[in-house]
């Protein structure tokens, strides 16, 4: 009986966990960890169910679309849920050692709320419901950024909040126009009814721009580096790994299901989508260059890692002009690999910060000898970000390259190589300083072993992802979210 409702459990469980953590602050770490493990298991349960039964549709309240709200799981949303579960579990374990109780009692409810929002977002098939989850996610993320206190973090959080609200309002205006055009907010129904009309153009413009702002695609990335670098390390990790990806996921869903109007009138709108795809691809390429160069310029480790996120987001958008199933798969594999690797990298940066009390790259002062596990984690994560074999990043780039060549647009593939070189340069910059002595003597702090090991495990996972690529790629096929006709 219960196993039928994994879809609901993955939303209710973290909410319940958040409430419990809020009610009993003294036991917050224990209840938080139990929730995290339970949630991981529930996502496995859901995966099993979807593998058995295929894509699922769940009508909340029993009404069903268009009147009620539907939840929908296919390969795409399942992959996002799994990424969230894996990264979430690692972040939970890491945070259990990272925060002292006075911060932990605020961190855990917020984090579990964020997790619930992410799961609800990935499961939702209703664009207004997605707005609510988007706000839930945004507010939780802002509060988490502000958690580290201090002028930088608070200013960054404020800017992030304004940007996040602005993006949501643009999105909501788009929802309003779509609803009043077609009388539904269900993605499946909209995908059948939408056709070319002024309201739809404006809605697409508003929604895409709002989501791009939230995804921090160049040149709208201005809020990301300060927010991601001034947050506490586990928060930085989950922002870069998950939160930015959530708005990308919505964009992808809309792009694949609501915006293509080719299914109603053949040929219509295909041109507009082509033009928009080229714009997104160009912005992605610009993000790769800009993020890479800015990362190289940084003197602070966490800012460097944050700019590397700007670069990696650029990669994701290279899939849009390619418009092929293999391109989408590549982008999602990249998303997966980046989520895991970036988690490891931010955790490693957090360990270094914990150890030395600062993250100035020039003063890393032989961290390599003192925190070998952490530096290994940083290096391995760097290998995946660079896209060297046999890491997960390599498989993703390989697929993207293949898609670029197949579609006859090899120049997008060039950006992968440029990005890889830039990534290599900034990773080596950090590693180089980690081996050498700086003039500044250090009072080494104590880094809990758990934090070092979690970072290393995530980094190894980022590498191992390259060896087991067929599994997630096959998972993505469930419910064929990328359509059949494009094949």
């Amino acid at each position, binding site marked *: 009986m219960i196993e039928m409702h994994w879809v609901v459990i993955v939303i209710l469980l973290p909410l319940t966990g958040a409430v419990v953590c809020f009610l009993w602050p003294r036991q917050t770490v224990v209840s938080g960890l139990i929730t995290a493990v339970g949630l991981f298991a529930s996502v496995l349960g859901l995966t099993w169910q979807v593998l058995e039964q295929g894509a699922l549709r769940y009508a909340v309240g029993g009404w069903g679309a268009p009147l009620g709200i539907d939840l929908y799981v296919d390969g795409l949303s399942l992959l996002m849920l799994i990424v969230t579960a894996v990264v979430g579990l690692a972040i939970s374990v890491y945070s259990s050692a990272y925060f002292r109780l006075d911060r932990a009692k605020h961190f855990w409810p917020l984090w579990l709320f964020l997790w619930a929002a992410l799961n609800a977002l990935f499961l939702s098939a209703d664009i207004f419901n997605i707005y609510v989850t988007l706000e839930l996610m945004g507010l939780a993320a802002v509060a988490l950024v502000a958690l580290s206190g201090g002028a930088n973090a608070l200013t960054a959080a404020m*800017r992030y909040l304004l940007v996040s609200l*602005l993006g949501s309002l*643009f999105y909501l205006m788009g929802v309003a126009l779509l609803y009043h055009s077609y009388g539904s907010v269900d993605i499946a129904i909209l995908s059948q009814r939408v056709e*070319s*009309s*002024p309201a*739809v*153009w*404006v809605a*697409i*413009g*508003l929604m*895409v*721009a*709002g989501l*791009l*702002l939230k995804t921090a695609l160049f*040149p*709208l990335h*201005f*809020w990301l580096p*300060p927010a991601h670098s001034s947050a506490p390390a586990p928060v930085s990790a989950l922002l870069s790994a998950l939160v930015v990806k959530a708005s990308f996921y919505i964009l992808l869903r809309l792009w694949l299901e609501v915006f293509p109007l080719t299914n109603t*009138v053949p*040929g*219509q*709108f*295909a*041109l*507009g*989508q*082509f*033009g*928009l795809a080229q*714009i997104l691809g160009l912005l992605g390429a610009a993000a790769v260059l*800009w993020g890479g*160069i*800015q990362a190289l*310029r940084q*003197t602070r480790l966490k800012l460097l890692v944050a700019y590397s996120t700007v670069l990696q987001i650029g990669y994701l958008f290279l899939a849009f002009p390619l418009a092929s199933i293999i391109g989408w798969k590549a982008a999602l594999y990249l998303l997966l690999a980046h989520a895991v690797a970036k988690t490891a990298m931010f955790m490693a940066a957090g360990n270094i910060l914990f150890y030395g009390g600062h993250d*100035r790259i*020039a*003063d890393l002062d032989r961290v390599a*000898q003192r925190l*070998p*596990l952490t530096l*290994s984690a940083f290096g391995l994560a760097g290998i995946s970000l660079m896209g*060297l*074999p*046999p890491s997960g990043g390599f498989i993703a780039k390989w697929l993207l390259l293949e898609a670029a060549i197949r579609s006859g647009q090899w120049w997008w593939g060039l950006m992968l190589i440029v990005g890889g070189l830039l990534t290599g340069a900034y990773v*080596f*910059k950090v590693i*180089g*300083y980690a*081996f*050498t*002595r*700086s*003039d*500044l003597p250090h009072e080494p702090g104590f880094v809990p072993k758990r934090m070092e090991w979690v970072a290393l495990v995530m980094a190894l996972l980022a590498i191992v992802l390259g060896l087991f690529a*067929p599994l997630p790629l096959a998972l993505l096929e469930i419910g064929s979210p990328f359509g059949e006709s494009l094949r």
Partner: protein
Amino acid sequence: MNDVLLLDFLMTLLLLFVPGLPLLLAFPALHSRLPWFRYLALLPAVIAVAIPEAHSVELPWLLFGSELGIENSSRLLLAMSVFLWFWVMVLLPAARDRSEGRPEDKYSTVFFLLAMTGNFGAILAMDLVAFFVFSTLLGYSFYGLLVSGRKNKARRAGRVYLVLLILADLLLFEVLLITVLTTENLEFAAVHQSMAQSDSLTLYLALVVFAFAARAGIWPLHFWLPLAYRSTRPAVALLLGIPVVIGLLGIVRWLPLGEISSPELGLIIFGSGLVAMLFAIFAGLKMAQLKMLPAYAAILVTGLFFTAVGAGLADPVIWSHYGRFAYVFIASLGSGLAVLVFAISWLQVRRDYPARSAGYADDSNQWVERWSGLVVVWAGNTGFDTLPRWRVWWLAKMRHLWLLIRIWQRQMGVYERSLQRWGLAITLFLLLAITITFVMASAGLSSSI
């Protein structure tokens, strides 16, 4: 028609010269220092890499009738090797300058050229015998390189390597005998087919894997690799990836992977690969000495390669899916090890010029400058002295370039800062929204007309 014939002839000549020219140059190298000719040795290989065409030549007069050829996968390996050799050639005089007056170092150029012959030849070889001959040449000249160093430890590494080499050669000779008994044609493709049906398949597989594992320094036959990395000269250290690469290439070329299924042996190889990886991780973490890092990286990655080979032996489907990655993997292993060696020797130069402390907040520009300075110091230490005129010109160019980079960097900072400003950023956002709407609208209108 004549054109085609001519082209064919030229390609044949080119393929012959790729391993042949270094071999020819090795003789005059005995007597003179060849300051420029050593770059010449690379020329045919560079051309072969640059011409994107598959080609092979049969040489019935060589050995038992050999075949050389080049296609995309071997071109990748050749490109990687050329890249490494170019750097080694640049570094070569350093090895000589530092040991002036020592007669034995005169021969090291010869060893380098012979090793280059072996390396290129093994990559191009299309049959068992040619591969065997060239890779053996590579092995023994490498022994020469190791031993010609003045350090005792390097000599010890050389001795260990020699023992393993002789053992491997004996085994490979056995393999050749078995193969000749089974089939007439010693071309790789033919051997794969006939060995797949042979009764002595398991023996063949085991001997090949063991022999090449010894040559490539794969755990547990890895002892010479850390020793060599610790003790040898930078020029040789850059090259230490080559025998490893050729060893792995041998495994891929000699084993009929993807055609046979041998679960037991596959499992053993898979297991040993896993153990090798664990060993490398733990031994590598324990080892504080930076110079030995590449050796453990090599053991780690070759271990990984062995798990793949093991999986491929156990289930040919896996290999036919992923086998094409093997060449990419091998090539990136070779260049990766070299980059690691480069980075480490650079770090050692840096140790004399430690990073300045964080007295200043904005050192984003300085680090490029420091980098460049260190590269110059490093290059000066290792060999640019021989080319004084070039160096002056090059340095002047570089200084200019770095000046440009600094200006450009500052400009990037200014741009980013202005992007960070709220007003501009949101205006850009608005612009994007409007652009998207217009793109959609114009397309919608044009299609409805």
